[in-house]
């Protein structure tokens, strides 16, 4: 049952990701990308990391897709159907993509994915009143608190990295302002 769900999600992700790279209409690409991101958030949910899933939707669907659509509108005339899906850098990009994929596979293969999920079989036939009053049968990790503690408690050692994130965001912001600002001269 749940594995079927996984395959459906994976199918959606792969299919829409393929659409992203093959469809010629850039706006449709962006929509397909949103679909991909939504599917990925489904995977997070499947693993039981609901905070991550929500963040995925919030940032990638709600923000990044909008950014990309605005970017499309900014950079070129969208409906001029002159854009080619393939260009002469196809070989290099194929190599690069393959390399990235290899690295990803290495990383993915070496990590252990923890599911934060309760046994779903019990829940499917559970009566309404019980599902609405969740009494976790398996130890449930409050991932939000976990994340906060991991990031901000000094003993975990990520505090500096966390502060650095804001510097990174700041530099992105400054960069955006500098690039987008019309040159007075």
């Amino acid at each position, binding site marked *: 049952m749940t594995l079927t769900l996984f395959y459906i999600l994976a199918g959606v992700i792969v299919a829409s990701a393929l659409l992203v790279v093959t469809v010629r209409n850039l706006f449709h690409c962006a929509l397909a990308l949103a679909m991909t991101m939504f599917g990925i958030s489904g995977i997070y949910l499947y693993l039981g990391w609901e905070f991550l899933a929500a963040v995925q939707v919030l940032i990638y669907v709600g923000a990044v897709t909008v950014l990309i659509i605005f970017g499309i509108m*900014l950079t070129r*005339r969208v409906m001029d159907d002159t854009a080619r899906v393939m260009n002469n850098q196809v070989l290099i990009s194929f190599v690069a993509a393959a390399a990235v994929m290899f690295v990803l596979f290495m990383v993915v293969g070496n990590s252990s994915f923890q599911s934060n999920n309760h046994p779903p079989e019990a829940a499917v036939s559970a009566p309404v009143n019980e599902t609405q009053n969740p009494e976790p049968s398996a130890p449930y990790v409050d991932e939000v608190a976990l994340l906060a503690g991991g990031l901000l408690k000094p003993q975990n050692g990520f505090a500096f990295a966390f502060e650095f994130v804001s510097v990174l965001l700041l530099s992105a912001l400054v960069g955006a302002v500098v690039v*987008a600002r*019309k040159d007075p001269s």
Partner: protein
Amino acid sequence: MTDLLLSQIKPGGESPFGTDEYVVNMGPQHPATHGVLRLVVKLDGETVKETMPVLGYLHRSIEKICENRTYPQCITYTDRVDYVSAMSVNLAFALATERLMGLEAPPRAQWLRMIFVELQRLASHLLWMGAFAGDIGALTPFLYGLRERERILDLFEMTCGQRLTYNYIRIGGVMIDILPEFIPKCKAFLDYFEPRIVEYEELLTYNPIFLERTKGVGVISAEVGINSGVCGPSLRGSGVSCDVRKQQPYLFYDQVKFTECLQNDGDCWARYRVRMDELRESISIVRQCLERLEPGPIETKLPPILKAPPASEIYSRIESSRGEMGIYLVGDGTAKPYKAKYRCASFSNTFVLDQLTRGWKVADIMAVLGSLDMIVPEVDR
């Protein structure tokens, strides 16, 4: 119908980071153009590069028709030149004809004319206030304005039988005397109406959104305003004293006390203030007129066929609700005007729109257009 104008517009240039300059068409059917004005707006992003008003969607050839009508018949067409302020145009034409023929209306008729023209100014400004507020998104003042306007129209209908096209002010007098119950009703209305102005002000005047939308927007400097022919309350918002009632008094405006409302900023808010102040002034004028109304004849005896002297001409101006209303009449000794030209305030006020909106945002076109109090039939006639 081929649209020659649009085909003449060259496609805009491209800037490296910027937008394509593009052309948005507003009108002829558009909620904010007060009828059938058409604006072709060249935009760079949201910024207006050029506003091109396209007129003539309501060009009804009134001037041509008037050349084929007798002088009294022309009065019915003046109703339709500016239907929001029909009494003023009635008066303008009647005064012009009287001056052309050397007639004078009896005093009671003059007082009545003043009462009705000032009531008409109230009605017109109320409609303007509502439409202006509606243009910048506040819908309720529009309905409030119309609600009070209904009561003015009641007074009109009681007297002359029509709500919009009165045909009341005639050459040599007025159409009919007021009913005895008119005066108490009119006073009651004024008493009811004065506190309402406070409510409008609460709704709009210092509303931060309203201030944001109108303060500093569409500034007409006095110089530009005079040069571009802006007139009426729109020019008084720039601090130019241009009230025909003061400068070239007609009727008995030199016998009543009123101040000319002036503001110095020249922006939409100043124009709004001028008109709101004029509401109060008009109330006071109507009150004074009602005081001084005395019994007497309401029209002078006219010859059965009214003929202008040959080779005569007159350019007669009054202050209508929207500004200077000029009538240019050329008589050739017949019963019909040889030439009748209506110089309407909206025509010259709309001309300045392009200058005021360049470099502003799309939404400001609506605010500026609304604040200029433009009525399309006056522009197109």
